């Protein structure tokens, strides 16, 4: 197993490093460490606003959600096994040719990603906090406990995601049932307080039972063991569900493309490419994945806003304009999905350039998301009795969405997931994404105090974003015309 794991780690590293450079890729953990150091160094101010217990809760919820996102090996493995990556093949598919089991390679994938993300994110995060000790006076042991507890939450998210996604490989009904149970458990906490959050996240329970919250004792040990038991049970369940032999589902399809093409006359030169995108999205099941990956952070955001308002009783005015800006931010996730549907190698033989395909994906993004985003902002406004600000919230949502996705397309082209591991691109992305969103968020909080100032400020930000969008959109040709689909 250790030899296989070593090879899989090498494979993963090379896959990521080939899109930027080794140096840039290896700089990613340094970037995370630096960010963590900055958080540590400014923690005194941050903790004035958010008590340590709440900050730790947010850390664990984030680690858990991140793990959920990372661990969907049932989906990823199926993609690898179906060789959906054109001329690329992966070690996980080797049992088809070699005397080894898919269970072994799937376990390898789980361990590989656990190590990979600890080395890339959780480890550097802890080291960044350690580096801030001379400024903060944090105890090294407390940082060690934080690392272990956060790791437990991350691994629980990964394991749960691993289990549920492999369940999907066996039965979609069972998958839907499992998702309903998990959502039900979190809803039981979030909506009705029936289940304490520490019960759902043993890593958090362990953390609350360790310094600086409490002296180490049996409670921490029990929570830790419970967490490890849950993780082991999920991984074991997932491995039992991994099939011995993999046979992709095959069913005949009707000729849909000409019909979709005929209906998209409005898209002019992009018509056939856009039609293909829609057929791809439908048949690959990506539409459902996109929906969940868009809606989940929106629910998380709503939960956070609700928590800040009612749990922390902080006088923060989350209104429709705030949600409009945030919805735009999450559009990046959808653009990433659009680039992950299939390999694009076949485009290399056709008279189609990379910028044209990028523009097609942007069009697909607009068609797919405008409705959902509008519905979310209108729905949240109605729920909060804040419909009066919709006239401002909707333009904010629309301009921010388009800006965010065009900016992401400009920076990452058709390989969003890989390029965002390049610290230089990640740094540019962070500045270009966070600054305007921060501006809009702060302005949204002042709308009731000084409406004229707020509207003028927001209009200015939106105008700047619209101009930036235009420049970035026009720059797509210059930046991506020379790039290849297969390199």
């Amino acid at each position, binding site marked *: 197993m250790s030899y296989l794991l070593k090879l899989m780690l090498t494979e993963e590293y090379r896959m990521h490093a080939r899109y930027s450079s080794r140096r840039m890729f290896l700089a990613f953990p340094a970037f995370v460490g630096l960010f963590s150091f900055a958080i540590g160094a400014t923690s005194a101010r941050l903790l004035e606003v958010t008590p340590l217990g709440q900050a730790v809760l947010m850390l664990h919820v984030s680690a858990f959600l991140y793990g959920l996102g990372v661990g969907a090996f049932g989906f990823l493995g199926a993609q690898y096994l179906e060789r959906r990556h054109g001329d690329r093949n992966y070690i996980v598919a080797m049992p088809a040719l070699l005397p080894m089991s898919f269970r072994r390679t799937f376990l390898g994938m789980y361990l590989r990603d656990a190590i990979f993300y600890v080395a890339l994110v959780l480890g550097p995060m802890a080291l960044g906090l350690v580096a801030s000790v001379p400024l903060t006076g944090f105890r090294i042991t407390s940082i060690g406990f934080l690392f272990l507890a956060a790791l437990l939450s991350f691994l629980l998210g990964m394991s749960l995601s691993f289990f549920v996604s492999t369940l999907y490989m066996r039965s979609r009904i069972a998958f839907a049932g499992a998702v309903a149970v998990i959502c039900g458990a979190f809803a039981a906490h979030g909506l009705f307080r029936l289940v304490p959050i520490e019960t759902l996240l043993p890593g958090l329970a362990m953390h609350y039972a360790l310094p600086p919250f409490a002296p180490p004792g049996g409670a921490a040990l029990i929570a830790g063991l419970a967490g490890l038991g849950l993780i082991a049970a999920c991984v074991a369940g997932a491995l039992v569900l991994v099939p011995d032999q993999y046979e992709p589902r095959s069913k005949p399809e009707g000729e849909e493309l000409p019909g979709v093409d005929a209906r998209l006359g409005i898209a002019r030169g992009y018509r056939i490419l856009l039609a293909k995108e829609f057929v791809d999205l439908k048949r690959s099941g990506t539409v459902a994945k996109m929906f969940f990956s868009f809606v989940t952070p929106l629910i998380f955001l709503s939960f956070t806003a609700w928590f800040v308002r009612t749990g922390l009783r902080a006088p923060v005015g989350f209104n429709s304009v705030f949600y409009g800006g945030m919805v735009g931010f999450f559009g990046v996730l959808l653009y990433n999905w659009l680039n992950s549907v299939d*390999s694009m190698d076949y485009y290399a033989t056709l008279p189609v350039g990379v910028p044209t395909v990028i523009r097609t994906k942007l069009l697909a993004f607009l068609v797919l998301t405008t409705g959902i985003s509008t519905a979310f902002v209108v729905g949240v406004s109605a729920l909060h009795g804040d419909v009066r600000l919709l006239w401002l919230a909707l333009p904010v949502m629309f301009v921010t969405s388009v800006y965010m996705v065009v900016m992401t397309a400009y920076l990452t082209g058709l390989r969003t997931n890989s390029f965002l591991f390049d610290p230089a691109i990640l740094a540019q992305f962070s500045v270009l994404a966070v600054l305007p969103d921060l501006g809009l968020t702060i302005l949204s909080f002042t709308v009731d105090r000084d409406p004229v100032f707020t509207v003028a400020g927001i209009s200015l930000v939106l105008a700047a974003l619209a101009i930036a969008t235009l420049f970035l959109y026009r720059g797509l040709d210059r930046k991506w015309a020379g790039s290849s689909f297969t390199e």
Partner: protein
Amino acid sequence: MRRVKAIEARGLTKRYEGVTALDDVDLSIDAGEFFGLVGPNGAGKTTLLRILTGQLAPTHGTARVLGIDPAREPLRVKAAIGIVPEVESPPSYLTAAEYLYFVGRVRDVPRLQDAIDRWIGFFDLDEARGTICRDLSKGTRQKLMLAAAFLHAPDLLFLDEPFINLDPIHQRRLKDFLLEYGAAGHTVFMCSHLLEIAEKLCDHVAVIDRGRVIAQGSVAAVRRDEKDLETAFLRLVGERR
């Protein structure tokens, strides 16, 4: 009378992080010629094909394909030619018929449905019509990629190992088609390991090894005194080992 050149290359070189994949390659291929590029694995055949078809930019050197510079105008080159890549990778979620429809719409092929039906019939793809490409066998995907390259009846074809994965019936059918295609004055640039086929089909060949063209000319000229192209190839490449 000077013949029109379909492909011309001068000093083509491609380097990747310390590795020279192609080293100062010159080529001159007349219109209507059936040209074969042969060489061992990793010799640089696919790299040269990808540069000539605008898929890859050279580190040095220039090329003209049907009078167009593929490095400067890759889309114009791709519009004028047909390409069958080394790896058959049609889009996973389109059916065989939909892929041909897609390619035909991108290339603006007139009377598209007739063209699709012709090539589906030629390669016996009827049963694959409604199957998404992800579920097709390797050989069927190869036939589909060939059909997609022929759909717009280009004047110049670039074929990278076109016979690999094909059954003997379709190998024969493809050979006959390519001979007719060449006889009609069209140009073929083919990379192949199958020296017997190359010897039968090609007017001219070039032998490439470790990124350098080590022999080039008519099949007879490259073969010299050897009994066949395979023996000549083994001598030429073997001398450098």
